[in-house]
């Protein structure tokens, strides 16, 4: 099955920052393979480097050293425009604070990536409605984000992440701003996406959220210190 295909391959990834005269390694040399269709949770305390790793995985940032092959393509060799296209087509992002545009409706927010992909307006609308239906928000399509609850906003954000049909979904603390009920709903959505065969990467510091994944990684001081399957409770602190 496609399960064996390696989607993400990191080798010796380092991210170095200069602070004054000192060079600080946010990531100290990470080796990681993530297979196609895997549901991975990335855990770690704040300052551990997990956000930096997420930014590199999401092609928002480039590593200082090392090789990152996404679907066999070396990311370091891609131009800024190619990186933008990769973010647009191959990766869907979900954030803790939803990151929706407040001045446009839910359906327009969902359609935004399609604007950058150059899809026609009618087709944009159709596809945006389709994914909104998938997350159960078709009846809220014309509401502004501030007319929606936290959980609904996050589902709009997930719909936006899905609209270009990307193979990878990356979520950075997606339940951090949500109550228990909404958290459960959103996690169900991610589980369903995983079951549909998407590669899901979830950054979180909550063990109960991480338990939903099949694989749990613990990042500490810029390195992956533990790599466990489901069922193990990784305590971040």
């Amino acid at each position, binding site marked *: 099955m496609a399960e064996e295909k390696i989607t993400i391959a990191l080798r010796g990834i380092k991210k170095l920052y200069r602070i004054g005269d000192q060079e600080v390694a946010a990531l100290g040399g990470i080796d990681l393979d993530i297979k196609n269709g895997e549901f991975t949770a990335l855990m770690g305390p704040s300052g551990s480097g997990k956000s930096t790793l997420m930014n590199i995985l999401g092609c928002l940032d480039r590593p200082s050293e090392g090789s990152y092959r996404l679907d066999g393509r070396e990311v370091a060799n891609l131009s800024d*425009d190619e990186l933008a296209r990769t973010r647009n087509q191959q990766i869907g992002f979900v954030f803790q604070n939803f990151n929706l545009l407040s001045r446009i409706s839910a359906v327009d927010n969902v359609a935004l990536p399609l604007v950058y992909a150059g899809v026609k307006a009618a087709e944009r609308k159709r596809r945006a409605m389709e994914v909104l239906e998938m997350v159960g928000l078709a009846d809220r399509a014309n509401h502004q984000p501030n007319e929606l609850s936290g959980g609904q906003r996050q589902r709009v954000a997930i719909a936006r992440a899905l609209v270009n049909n990307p193979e990878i979904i990356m979520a950075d603390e997606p339940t951090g701003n949500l109550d228990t009920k909404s958290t459960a709903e959103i996690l169900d959505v991610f589980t369903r996406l995983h079951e549909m065969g998407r590669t899901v990467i979830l950054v979180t510091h909550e063990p109960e959220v991480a338990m939903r994944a099949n694989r749990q990684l613990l990042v500490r001081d810029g390195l992956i210190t533990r790599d466990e399957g489901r069922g193990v409770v990784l305590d971040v602190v």
Partner: protein
Amino acid sequence: MKIRTLEYFVREVFLSLKRNNWMSVASVGTVAVSLFIFGMFLMLVLNMNKMAESLESQVQINVYLEEGTTSSEIRSLEAELNDMQGVEKVTFVSKDEAMERFKERLGDQSSILDALDDTNPLPDGFEVMITQPELVETAAKNIEQHKHVESAKYGQDVMEHLFDITRLIRFFGLVLMLFLAGATLFIISNTIRLTVFARRKEIAIMKYVGATDWFIRWPFMMEGMVLGLFGGILANIILRFGYSALVSEIYSALAFFPLIPEQPFLNYISIVVVFGGMAIGAMGSTISLKRFLEV
């Protein structure tokens, strides 16, 4: 660029201008003022150049005659000079006239001439106007060959001074215009910086979902260009009316003052001011965007 994308950009630009309406008005106003001053100096420098040119081209040779040249000899010499190539006009200046002019030039200090005891040491002479400045030197030499001519001098020093002054005006004008272009750039980039700052979260979101840098940059650049365009048009209207008024004012008082005629001069100025405003607007927004494109 696809039409669809262009439509999106245009809508974004006008939405943004509307959202920041008072900021937009204020920056159009300041841009207009600074482009107006810029245009004024451009006009001044061009007119100065033109004036210097016309002065350069009015070149005069002073011819001094030998003592005791008779009036018939003077008349025949005048005729000969008039026949010379490149001579526009020959005016006789008698020694008495020359003395009058000299007294006038001395003004308050004309009493020093009392020491001359009513004798007049100045010679009779001609003022010879030459059509082209390049001909002056040879014309002066030729005139000196004539009988009864003591010497023929042309204002070499004056011309060199004139060149210096023109150069100076050109230089300062250029410095000033560069300075004003810089000021306009600063104003526009500041305005755009405010809109960019207000929308920095939006820019980040656009980057997350895969907008290319140029896709993000275009609406802001167009916004800067629209600000520059409106400012330029405003400045241009004031400049056109101002210059027309000035030209008619000056022509009624000083008919021969060598101002550049309104057409097509004003059209060139319009093009420079309006397109200059747009170019500076585009540059201004590029500068203020640079920092925010790095997520």
